[in-house]
């Protein structure tokens, strides 16, 4: 009982390029943007635009982080965003409470069905959420009479007034997103539920053998993702005073990209919400910069996002392989 190997027990944090990548690139891009475009980029109005644009994605990506950390994927968020927006506008005729509660409940129900099919019926997450993507989009169109009816949210409604308000120069959706993000951070990092999410993504089998309620956690993760997406949908509707069934297409991919760029392993088990925040900002700042370059069309945004996603995953694979040696 003497042959104890002394492990490196220093406190120093090992340099992890997969984690630090997004924030560093973000800083570089911010500096680059300021140098290249000066005031048109670094102006208060432009930064406010970036913040507002990021807030919806941050909400969705926060939920997506939980899902991906647990080893799953949620492709239904883009459609749920549209559905939530349409339901908000539709529900607004009965007042603010209905306008908020209806979309949140419906989205949570979608998440619950997703979770049950994945966690209990053991169907692959991507198939289940793909079907939910179709179903939710269909429902969004059905509620808005195939897109022919656009429900308008009255301007004097409390929802509109809150949704379009600003506080300390920052728009309401940004505040909502930050609060949700903060609560999400606490949930992920400071509760047993969060630890279980990480553990399940790391090894579902081991987690089960250690006696944790794996199925329940997996179900809740999808409910959370759907509910946060619903919240984003409500905020978009309040901001634009209407709900369109066509919005949100491709949002699921953007959210996945943000999460993965933020250093979360797509296979689950490791990652962080702070990384996701950096990933969201990075994507939105790059998109903004592409818009600044007059000669580049907005479509370059997608090219950059997709390429970025692949490069980041390639780097992750490389690092994982080296660590295994």
């Amino acid at each position: 009982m003497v042959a104890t190997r002394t492990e490196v027990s220093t406190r120093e944090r090992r340099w992890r390029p997969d984690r630090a990548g997004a924030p560093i690139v973000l800083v570089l891009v911010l500096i680059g943007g300021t140098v290249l475009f000066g005031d048109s980029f670094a102006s208060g109005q432009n930064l406010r635009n970036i913040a507002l644009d990021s807030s919806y994605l941050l909400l969705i990506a926060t939920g997506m982080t939980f899902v991906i950390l647990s080893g799953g994927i949620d492709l239904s968020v883009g459609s749920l965003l549209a559905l939530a927006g349409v339901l908000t506008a539709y529900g607004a005729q009965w007042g603010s409470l209905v306008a908020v509660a209806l979309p949140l409940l419906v989205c949570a129900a979608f998440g619950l069905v997703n979770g049950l099919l994945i966690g209990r019926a053991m169907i692959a997450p991507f198939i289940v959420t793909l079907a939910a993507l179709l179903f939710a989009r269909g429902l969004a169109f059905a509620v808005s009479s195939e897109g022919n009816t656009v429900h308008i949210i009255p301007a004097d409604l409390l929802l509109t007034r809150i949704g379009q308000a600003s506080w300390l120069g920052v728009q309401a959706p940004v505040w909502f997103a930050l609060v949700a993000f903060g609560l999400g951070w606490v949930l992920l990092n400071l509760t047993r539920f969060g630890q279980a999410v990480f553990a399940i993504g790391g090894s579902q089998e081991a987690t089960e053998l250690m006696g944790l309620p794996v199925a329940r956690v997996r179900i809740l993760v999808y409910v959370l993702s759907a509910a946060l997406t619903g919240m984003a949908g409500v905020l978009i509707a309040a901001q634009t005073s209407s709900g369109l069934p066509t919005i949100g297409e491709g949002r699921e991919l953007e959210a996945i990209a943000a999460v993965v760029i933020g250093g979360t392993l797509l296979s689950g088990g490791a990652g962080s919400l702070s990384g996701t925040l950096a990933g969201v900002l990075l994507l939105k700042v790059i998109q903004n910069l592409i818009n600044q370059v007059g000669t580049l069309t907005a479509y370059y945004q997608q090219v950059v996002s997709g390429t970025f996603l692949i490069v980041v995953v390639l780097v992750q694979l490389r690092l994982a392989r080296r660590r295994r040696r």
Partner: protein
Amino acid sequence: MTDLRTALPPRTEVVAFLQVAGVYLAIAALLVFNLVFTPNFATVTNLRLQLVQVAPVAIVAIGMALVIASEGIDLSVGATMAITAALLPLYLGYGVWVAIVISLAAGLLVGLVNGSLIAFAGMQPIIATLGLLVAGRGLALVFAEGRLTEIFDPTLNTLGNSAVLGVPISVLLALVITVAAGVAVHRTAFGRRLLATGGNRAAATLAGLPVKRTLVTVYVLSGLLAATAGLLTTARQGASDPSFVGLLIELSAITAVVVGGTPLSGGRVRILGTLMGALLMQLITATVIQQNLPDSAARMIQASIIVAAVYLQRGRGAS
């Protein structure tokens, strides 16, 4: 230690039967329903329209079936169609055949990238092809500068809208591709390698099969077929529309494959079933429309069918 797997739970024969014959039964039921309740259903015009509409989906689905047989998935097919559509008008100036070859080559290239990322870099198929889904559509829009371009080319017009012996060319092409894929799967060394790789990759490697080459090939085929579908769609519409061509077609293709009886777990494939799966989804959409139900209903029905089909297929691969 010994691996004493518990035997599969006994499945009811009804489920087993549905897995194999479900798609044919459903098609028959829908046909009967429409013959009885839908006026002008059994007209040549209507039937031809249905077939023309299903052809691109069927072609993409055949490629998807091969990919799924290799235990993979290809989400980038719609984006590949968009790239094809975007490139076509750009190179028409050099002659229509040059344009066609280039757009097909683009599909091949997308497949090559997918396949390399999966086979050599070891990336999960879903994420590699997801990346190309996003980047590919963006690239297509960049090429086309986001515009819809009308195309006036007699060759493409013939390709898209003419018929041989009353059968539209695109439908003929879909049939030829189905037959070719069937032959490839059942009669060639490639098909055997594909099923072995998808069925048991460890065993395929130990039998000395070129597993990585097989994987790359299957994604290249899927890319080529998607490009073909993009070509046909563009030719029929007489316009290159990279924003909308092939949008969400990956879902329809996966649905067709699964509904046609191919399990997502790899190692098995039903080519004819896939064709029938595509036809079934088309018939559902047509029925919904002709019964004056909204398009949104079609989507929701489709979604429910996907889940039901996968639920029924589930466990067939695991044994």
